[in-house]
């Protein structure tokens, strides 16, 4: 539902703070551990969840999410299992928006109509499809409109003003600003660059602006949360899965989420005070 996202951003706006968008990969490292993480995310401070669905050829992702996808596939992960995890999550939580994120082919394979119905039935709110630019997402738009689902569009440092109009036409939920030209988990953009980019996007749309790519540490998240409506963190969370025993994977990920959430929550309260 687009409504769940709209409500979440409205609530946060009243509280004068940015959202933490937490990305994890479905079925990483296995279905049940992933569900444990998923269920714990809102409590740890995630305001919005991005649930990745695995793909063999994640060409816009850095090593962290590539490895997460391979772990997930090895554990039997698929788009179907991702939808099942989303459905189970929704049984435990009515208010936290959940977005699926991944690549076009698993959806092409399932069929756009079937996918839209299944997504709606699972209680998820929308998708981000990395390799489906506005020029190619007409079939998705047609089926999503019927089910009141959001297509989150991406804007990047290479998106000029002309193109931005195209990107924003048909966008809903929020706009995902990819803050650096590169793959996920690479270096972060500077505070000045992010501020300028967010201001430019704000002039062009009323949709909330989420900033991601390269945000790994609380300090980077804090700086972005001062200007953007949401901060997206992914690689830093999925890295926690592989660094120790599987039995404690959920605990490690949720602890990291809590750290980042704390930084995002305090960002505007601290604004103006010397860092």
């Amino acid at each position, binding site marked *: 539902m687009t409504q769940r996202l709209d409500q979440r951003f409205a609530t946060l706006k009243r509280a004068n703070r940015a959202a933490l968008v937490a990305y994890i990969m479905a079925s990483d490292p296995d279905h049940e551990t992933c569900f444990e993480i998923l269920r714990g995310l809102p409590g740890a401070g995630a305001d919005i969840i991005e649930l990745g669905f695995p793909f063999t050829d994640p060409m*816009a992702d850095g090593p962290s999410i590539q490895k997460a996808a391979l772990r997930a596939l090895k554990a039997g992960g698929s788009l179907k299992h991702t939808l099942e995890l989303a459905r189970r999550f929704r049984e435990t939580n009515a208010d936290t928006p959940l977005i699926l994120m991944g690549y076009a082919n698993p959806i092409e394979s399932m069929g756009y109509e079937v996918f839209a119905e299944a997504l709606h039935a699972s209680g998820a709110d929308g998708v981000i499809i990395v390799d489906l630019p506005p020029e190619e997402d007409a079939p998705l738009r047609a089926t999503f409109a019927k089910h009141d689902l959001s297509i989150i569009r991406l804007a990047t440092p290479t998106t000029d003003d002309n193109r931005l109009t195209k990107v924003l036409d048909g966008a809903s939920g929020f706009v995902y600003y990819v803050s650096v030209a590169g793959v996920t988990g690479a270096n972060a953009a500077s505070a000045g660059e992010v501020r300028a980019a967010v201001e430019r996007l704000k002039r062009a749309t009323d949709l909330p602006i989420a900033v991601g790519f390269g945000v790994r540490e609380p300090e980077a998240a804090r700086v972005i949360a001062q200007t953007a409506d949401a901060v997206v963190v992914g690689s830093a969370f999925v890295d926690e899965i592989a660094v120790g025993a599987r039995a404690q994977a959920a605990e490690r990920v949720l602890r990291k989420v809590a750290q980042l959430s704390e930084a995002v929550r305090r960002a505007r309260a601290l604004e103006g005070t010397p860092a």
Partner: protein
Amino acid sequence: MDVRRNWQDLPDAEGRFGPYGGRFVAETLMPLVLDLERAYREAQADPAFAATMADFWTHYVGRPSPLYFAERMTEHFGGAKIYFKRDELNHTGAHKINNCLGQVLLALRMGKTRIIAETGAGQHGVATATICARLGLPCVVFMGATDIERQKPNVFRMKLLGAEVRPVTSGAATLKDAMNEALRDWVTNVADTFYCIGTAAGPHPYPEMVRDFQSVIGREARAQILKREGRLPDAVMACIGGGSNAIGLFHPFIDDEGVRLIGVEAAGRGIDDRFEHSAAINGGRPGVLHGNRTYLLQNADGQILEGHSISAGLDYPGVGPEHSYLSDIGRAQYLSATDDEALEAFKLCARLEGILPALEPSHALARVGEVAREIGKDGLLIMNLCGRGDKDVFTVADALGVTL
């Protein structure tokens, strides 16, 4: 209305061949592929660009390549006259250089200062490194770690030519992973880098652009056969991996309705649900990978499968989008040949014609006899001998159980 008259005009403005093709790339790359398309249109309209290409073709690559009457193969099969288009005689030993030359000249025109490429067997990597050396541009070639191990001579060639060969260990460490890594590099180095794709696939305008650069094969072949035989051939044949040599041969004949277009895919160890083949059209289904919609080897969940072929140059889970379209509408026909059939054809060609073909065109050779007999004695057939077999002697020796 005869829609077939529009075949030469494809793709459409969105880069579509029917439902295939398109631009399925990350938003960061969209402005770059749009920019590339603009630059390509300008180059197409500039006679100086064509003149520079032609000069390199004549004096550096060695074009036109001969159209050779394979007399003993013809006698052996007892059907149509078999001609070989000798693109294996090009500088660097394959058709790949036709495309690299065009793309790197375009990169220079666009003011790009760094070239990246992916390679599987190493032929496209060697061709790109060659042109980059000649034009004085730094070149980084992404190659799967598995392929680096299998293709050591080509790795060394690229290094001699001054290229940096970057091993790719992600995924299965083969061609598709090399392509993923090249795309990751491009998305990171957006300002100065030109991605030189090796086959007629990828986001628009690559399938069209690579086809256009490779169409020199078909243009020459068409003029040569008309001069020699006074008429068009009954069929033209080529092997299909991504399909750049095939589309280059097919395209100038596409509106000649009497000319059959026949592609031959790699059937590996047989086309079945073990997916130990690289026959995307015969054994795959449509999907989206590497920037285009096309036939792909994939499982029920849309995960891409590795495939297999004895020929590293055909070992790719997809195919160029124009072939997907030509297959669907029935304008071209796609056959297949197994590893073993290709090996037999390799040996036959060596003994009858004194030519060691690459394992890639050996797949097309494996179907040439049947097609020639089907056409009959008065017929004419052209097969593109798109690469020479020197690079494959180790693989062939291994397959025949010979230790060198």
